[in-house]
């Protein structure tokens, strides 16, 4: 059995699953100290299901802690950013485009050093060990305990980042090192930003992982713990302590994956209608499609692996106004829906009231919306459907109709028919889709590199990338034989006559669970 936990800003959800079956689900308020909320959720889960803690083989946790720490600029460590690229790259030093508040929160320590590669693999300049030793000494003097290392074209060749890390670790014993090639893609500033963000979260990562461990210990669970990543795969807690940044945006990913699991549909659009906003994402082979453009977190531009989610201001609590032009949202009564909406005895006309008046939902007292103009109801419902249909269409990858899975409390606003949908599915357990998404996550490996097709054929390059991605998935804990390549993307690089192409391949497999594999081998 496995437990999935989603620690959100408002609620901590937990589910107990055996195979594909949801045995129990609970929803409790998130607490400021993390541990208490998780303990409360686990206690209820244990009592609801008369579970023996020893029966739990794995616990998967999705969390928003790290994202929130960056957005609030709290609990971040003083961090050194070391970039290898001199004499190039000086014009734009590390953290050049960061908000002042965040730069100050981590001290703004930037070091430019020699190193880096050209696009074709030549060195920009050789690494200068003396220079790096001096940088290391300065970092030690300042008492900084975490370092982000980036090198030009390190996604193509990672050697220099690794060599620099070795030198700095010798100079600064016990220092935590984050390497950019492990974290981001081509695009030096964005990759470096993500690496620095990762570096400044290292202490928090250790303490959060500790909090998770002690919460589990308190209820007697001693199984391995995994954290959800933003691409729908899992990482071990050891890995999470080193790469906390990989948890960013895992919330929407888990909710989408959970929706896919509950509905059994692997290629679909997922609509998550909340109280204030609607999030729409697309699943390909059961995994969220990733955003291709730069994503900002706490006003820092990054190129994280992020799900491509389109959000807009329509939810159950959206305000309806009809002054000249009918408008629904983006303003919302939010969590006050159950006191402010007409059907709940309030005096604000909301999207929920329109849905009840139109007979789409049966909530509160229907009589309270009897006097709402029927033309307004009709037009309002039509407007909501068309806005959602348009957003779905915007997210689709082809003109073909696709299945749509709907989760979230606000889904009552939707009719069972959406234009462009081959079918519309509203699954059970939709309220805890997040925690289910965490529980069912797999492990993956990714390759994202520039290949020169002068020396090898395109097919050979793709084959090499696929094999590397599969190896990485196994290294990350996937069971051999379950690993599949889920995504292949090829981007020819403009202007380069050497016919260079960038290939991204992702492979995923089922997590190798010790207890389960023992059971199978018997």
């Amino acid at each position, binding site marked *: 059995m496995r437990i999935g936990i989603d620690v959100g800003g408002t609620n901590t959800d937990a589910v107990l699953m055996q195979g594909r079956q949801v045995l129990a689900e609970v929803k409790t308020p998130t607490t400021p100290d993390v541990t208490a909320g998780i303990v409360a959720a686990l206690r209820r889960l244990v009592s609801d299901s008369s579970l023996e803690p020893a029966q739990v083989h794995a616990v998967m946790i999705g969390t928003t802690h790290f994202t929130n720490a960056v957005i609030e600029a709290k609990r971040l460590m003083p961090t050194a950013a070391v970039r290898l690229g001199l004499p*190039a*790259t000086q014009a734009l030093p590390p953290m050049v485009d960061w908000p002042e508040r965040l730069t100050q929160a981590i001290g703004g320590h930037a070091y430019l050093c020699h190193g880096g590669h050209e696009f074709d693999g030549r060195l920009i300049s050789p690494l200068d060990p003396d220079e790096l030793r001096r940088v290391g000494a300065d970092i030690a003097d300042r008492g900084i305990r975490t370092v982000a290392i980036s090198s030009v074209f390190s996604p193509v060749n990672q050697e220099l980042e690794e060599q620099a890390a070795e030198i700095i670790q010798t100079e600064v014993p016990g220092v935590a090192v984050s390497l950019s090639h492990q974290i981001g893609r081509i695009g030096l500033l964005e990759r470096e930003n993500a690496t620095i963000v990762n570096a400044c979260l290292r202490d928090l990562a250790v303490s959060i992982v500790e909090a998770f461990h002690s919460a589990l210990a308190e209820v007697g669970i001693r199984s391995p713990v995994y954290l959800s990543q933003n691409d729908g795969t899992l990482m071990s807690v050891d890995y999470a302590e080193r790469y906390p940044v990989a948890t960013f945006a895992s919330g929407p990913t888990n909710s989408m994956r959970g929706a896919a699991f509950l509905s059994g549909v692997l290629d679909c659009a997922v609509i998550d209608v909340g109280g204030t906003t609607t999030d729409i994402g697309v699943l390909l082979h059961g995994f969220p499609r990733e955003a291709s453009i730069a994503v900002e977190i706490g006003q820092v531009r990054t190129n994280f692996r992020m799900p491509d989610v389109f959000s807009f201001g329509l939810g159950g609590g959206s305000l309806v106004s009809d002054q000249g032009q009918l408008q629904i949202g983006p303003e919302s009564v939010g969590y006050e829906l159950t006191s402010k909406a007409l059907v709940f005895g309030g005096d604000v006309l909301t999207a929920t009231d329109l849905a009840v008046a139109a007979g789409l939902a049966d909530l509160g007292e229907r009589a309270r919306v009897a006097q709402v103009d029927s033309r307004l109801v009709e037009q309002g419902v039509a407007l909501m459907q068309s806005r959602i249909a348009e957003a779905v*269409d915007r997210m689709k990858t082809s003109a073909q109709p696709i299945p749509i899975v709907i989760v979230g409390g606000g889904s009552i606003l939707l009719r069972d028919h959406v234009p462009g949908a081959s079918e519309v599915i509203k699954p059970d357990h939709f309220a805890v889709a997040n925690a289910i998404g965490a529980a069912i996550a797999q492990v993956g490996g990714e390759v994202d590199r520039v290949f020169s097709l002068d020396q090898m054929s395109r097919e050979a390059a793709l084959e090499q990338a696929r094999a590397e991605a599969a190896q990485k998935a196994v290294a990350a804990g996937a069971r051999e034989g379950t690993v599949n390549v889920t995504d292949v993307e090829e981007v020819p690089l403009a202007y*380069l006559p050497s016919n*260079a192409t*960038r290939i991204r391949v992702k492979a995923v497999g089922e997590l190798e669970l010790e207890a389960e594999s023992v059971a199978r081998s018997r």
Partner: protein
Amino acid sequence: MREVGEGDLEDLAIGAAVLGTGGGGNPYIGKLLAKQAIREHGPVTLVSVDEVPDEAVVVPSAMMGAPTVMVEKLPRGDEIIHAFKALEDYLGRPITHTVSIEAGGLNSTTPFSVAARMGIPLVDCDGMGRAFPEIQMVTATMYGVSATPMALADDKGNTALINTVDNRWTERLARSITIDMGATAMIALYVLTGKQLKEAMVPGTLGLAQELGSLIRQTRAAHGDAVGAILQRLNGFQIFSGKIADVRRRTEAGFAKGEARIEGIDQDAGSVLTIRFQNEHLVAIRDDRIVATVPDLIIVLEADSGEPITTEELRYGFRVAVIVTPCDARWRTPAGLALVGPRFFGYDVDYVPVEERFGSRGAAPATGL
């Protein structure tokens, strides 16, 4: 004459992406470079074309190379100073002004960092009134201005000075050197006198880019029609409303080539518009008939926000307005069309100005493919 500070660059970068007609490189890095240079060296003095003395020595400055490399291997910062010094040594006189070679995309903001670092004024004009993929494609070529002597400089301190028999040879040799320099170089070329500048360049285009950016920002803030505002400012024509249905890309001879298929909505429902591009948009084809070509500006805007969309950003599902605006009149002469007309890019059709196709009540005489 006016001073341009960090704050003006946001609008300028957005407007430059409009004039970039899908190409010209992502203005983000260019904007950051200009901002950083202004932060370190103070604001840039922007002068209009008629404020430049006839005897001035004006040198356009730009980044050359692959946009995909430019986002990884960032500049050292003083490359352009080396290029300018090499050119000054060769010329035997100081460079007094710099200017933008193309108003579209990345290179609209590049000269700002040059002007800030060198402490020389920047002239409000450019060599295209838009963006084009090759060095010889500037109005100055039509006036017999030579692209060379041209200086290229890299991060290591290397400079190369080339002299060529014509401007197409400049493109060829400069492209090879740029690749050896790491697929990105800072370049200084097309040395102009103030007098030549006045006749050979497209005036006011940096100011125009900034104005377009501010128009989009302000119209959007007021929930107005940003696409309409741009059309009006550029005397353009909206030729299509639709949704991106498919995008194909390939790399050929060092260029990003491809096409985007747009399915019509509203009054264009039932029709398909195909835009072919080579870094920049080249032609628009409506249901098998060409309805717009270079050198007119074929611009793709996000339908709601009016934000320009570059070819790298084109994706299925975007709702777009395709607008076409008239190019600088000189591109419409036989000499201009020989440089950048549809035939140069491999389309065997005559160029028909956009206002002749769409000018009267939108009836579009189309050219057979």
